[in-house]
């Protein structure tokens, strides 16, 4: 079956971050190269709290990388292919995610970041389709 050409059409896109004036150089690169949509600083970190205030466990991540070298290699390959580098500046432990809102601004679905893993785009497409279908039905 041919897939949709524009699975996210009809949805606006924006982002929230935790802080500024900590790693502005990194933020500039991010905004100019990787996420060219509008960004906001979430002053009260409400999005992070809504997503469970989940903390990245460094030891767990490192152990996972040692334990699963295949996945680690795959992650390194993905980053290299996309010319993505990173640093350790700023608060990077509280994990993020993606929140999908409907037209009325009601949060309908959320993807919780799994650090080190690619997003499952198919799952997001299913969520977006569900939101779109609900709007079309109403």
């Amino acid at each position, binding site marked *: 079956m041919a897939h949709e050409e524009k699975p996210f059409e*009809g949805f*606006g896109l924006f982002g929230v971050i935790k802080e500024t004036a900590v790693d502005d150089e990194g933020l500039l690169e991010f905004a100019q190269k*990787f996420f060219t949509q509008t960004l906001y600083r979430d002053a009260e970190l409400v999005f992070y709290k809504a997503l469970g205030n989940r903390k990245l466990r460094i030891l767990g991540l490192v152990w996972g990388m040692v334990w699963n070298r295949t996945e680690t290699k795959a*992650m390194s390959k993905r980053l290299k292919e996309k010319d993505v580098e990173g640093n350790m500046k700023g608060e990077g432990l509280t994990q993020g995610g993606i929140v999908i809102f409907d037209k009325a601004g009601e949060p309908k679905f959320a993807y919780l970041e799994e650090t080190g893993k690619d997003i499952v785009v198919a799952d997001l497409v299913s969520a977006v389709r569900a939101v779109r279908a609900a709007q079309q039905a109403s």
Partner: protein
Amino acid sequence: MRVRFLSVLAMAASSSTSGGVAALEGGVCARPAAFASAVTESVNRQLAGPIPTAVPSQLHISFKKSCLEQASMIPISTADGAVKELMPVLTTETMVQKHAGEYGSICFVVRRPG
């Protein structure tokens, strides 16, 4: 080997949806050529597979609009190579409404941009 830590949901965002949206929709993508093509390839590879007919349970949420709507969201400008916080500060509700498309909006909650 230097370990490359990807911050943000960046890898995520960049690897799939944000880039994906731009790439798939032919939008304005100011990213380096290698990044854009890699993202497009990654998204297309995933989308070539089956799409779940029902939204997976892990994407269902337990929070309500009221948890978010009155919080302060400060617009960020990165024009002219400098990070600036702009006024006026928006409520979440206003911010989400401002970016609503025909059917809704998608918000990337970034772990760390750098």
